[in-house]
């Protein structure tokens, strides 16, 4: 009886160790996950998401929604993507999974910037 009880305890301990070990391996060692962030966007070239930097909205920020594979992004920019131009584009070589989502007025509404000569433009770049 004691052996059977302990058997369950060992099974539980094994599952916990596997769970913690695999989690450590996946996220900290392999960086096997996607990273989402607001990438730089040129309102003259794309329909960008717009957000205000202050309450009065005198200073606007234009961005696109970028998702990159963490291991690639780390290779391109290191830990911090600030001032890393590679973070704002999907590189044909070096990005296994990458997507940049620009603003779509039909979906996102008034948070989109307006391109000169167009009411709204949505461009999506995905690699691969």
């Amino acid at each position, binding site marked *: *009886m004691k052996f*059977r*009880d302990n058997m*369950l305890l060992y*099974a*539980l301990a094994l*599952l*916990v160790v*596997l*769970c*913690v070990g*695999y*989690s*450590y391996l*996946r*996220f*900290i060692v392999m*960086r096997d*996950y*996607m*990273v*989402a*962030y*607001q990438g730089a966007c040129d309102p003259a070239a794309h329909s960008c998401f717009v957000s205000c930097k202050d309450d009065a909205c005198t200073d606007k920020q234009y961005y696109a929604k970028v*998702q990159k594979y*963490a291991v690639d*992004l*780390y290779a391109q920019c290191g*830990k*911090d*993507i*600030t001032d890393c131009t590679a973070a704002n584009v999907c590189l044909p070589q070096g990005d296994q999974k990458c997507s940049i989502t620009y603003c779509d007025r039909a979906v996102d509404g008034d948070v989109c910037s307006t391109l000169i000569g167009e009411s709204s433009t949505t461009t999506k770049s995905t690699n691969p």
Partner: protein
Amino acid sequence: MICNLFPEPTFFLYSTDVPGLLYYSHIPTAAVALLIGLFVFLNGRKFLLNRLLLAISLCFFLWIVSNLILWTNIHSDFLLFIWTIYVVLFSFISISFIYFVYVFLEKKDISFSLKSILLALLAPVLLFAPTSLNLGGFNITSCDAFQFEGLLFKMYYISLGVLAMVWILILLIRKYRTAASDFRKQIVLMGVGIEFFLFSFFTVTFLAAYLTDIGVLPDSSLEFYGLIGMVVFMILIAFAIVRYHAFNVKLIGAQALIVSLVILIGSEFFFIQSTTNQILTAITLIITGVIGLNLIRSVKKEVAQREHIEKLAGELQETNKRQETLMHFIGHEVKGYLTKDAGAFAAIVDGDFGAPPDGMKPFAERALAQSREGALSVENILTASNQKNGKVSYTKEPFDLKALAEGAVEKTRPTAEAKGLALSFSAGDTGSPYILNGDRGKIGDNVFRNVIDNAINYTPSGSIAISLKKENNKFIFAVKDTGVGITAEDKKRLFTEGGHGEDSQKVNVHSTGYGLFIAKNIAEAHGGTIRAESEGEGKGSTFIVELPV
């Protein structure tokens, strides 16, 4: 990757860019849970229930620490790793509570098959928590992973919490129906604590995450309020320990109170800002701690003394019981010998063995009287003892009280006349018979005889007037003498067990002090009363027995 819009925390967990309530809601709650868990475990580590409470407390403590890390840290790799642990701990708490409640209710470990079921429920969480079914990515702009959480996995581990709530509720209700009243109170305490904790913890945490995910809330700070459930649970556990010695732990209320006060005052450090307030709080904390320790020491000492006295009282009661049994045995033996002696003397006096020689008859008559008196004294002591222990039974039947009183007077007349006392009896003519429903023998021998004998014993000279009348639905039997009287001080002791007047034994050396005590008990058993009236020492006294018609 780091969340570049947020500052790096200092001391790993401290950040200025978090809601002010974060530390105040998390740290004291974690401290209370861990302290109570450890306290219960250290006071009874061999008990499974105590170990399970520690396991729950530890899981909860680690969950809080994980939650603090998720709020304050900015490294996505590390945060995703912790997020996985956080989810596992969340599920662990649900399953542990089911196990805990089973052991609490049944006072024994659960079966192998039930353990297997609990493990099977937990296994999917442990297997899939590190996979993309749980977390696929991380948003370093908002510094969270809500948008990458797998819905199916999330629904599964949240439903474990719901399952635990329902399962535990059913177990508690089923046990409550058959439990003893004292245990029922513990079931209610524990049930309210656990259900409230699970409800607040899972519901609020789920709602906070869901509303943040769909953009209704800017962040998941709503979850802070869910932690109050653990505080309530721990307070109820502390109450159960103090009141019912739950978990086989002895804790006095003062200890629980002082620890709560220290935690409460200490937790103020997490939201007060000014240095002056911090210094004042620190002083308050130190003073409370010092006074509290002294108070606990003093209360502990008192509790130890009380327990010692209770133990001694128990032993004394046991000794008294044994002595009483011995006294009873001796009393019966002595009474037996005296009765035999009285029989022998009576035979001599009655001339059963022929006419006694000259001078022997008065000697035999005195010996007979003394043997009878001795037997009566022993009988009184035994009767008083039986009355005290509730061993006396009464055989009630209707009888003529007047005839009984007359009989008692006639039986005592020779003794009174031998002392030169005038004994008279009068009964009021009511036109109806004096019929009383009661124990004829006890009222005659132990009430009327005792009261009349008492008057004879304490009246050196003069007269004794006995009367019986019916008034206001009561039979009133009164014995008025011209004896030594009763002082106010003696009146207090008159009807008590073995009670004597201060100088009574100078007048009556054979007094046991039980006669009037027995008379009082019998009168009261018949719904009546007995009292004594006297104008003071040397002024005679009147004993009045009132019995309801």
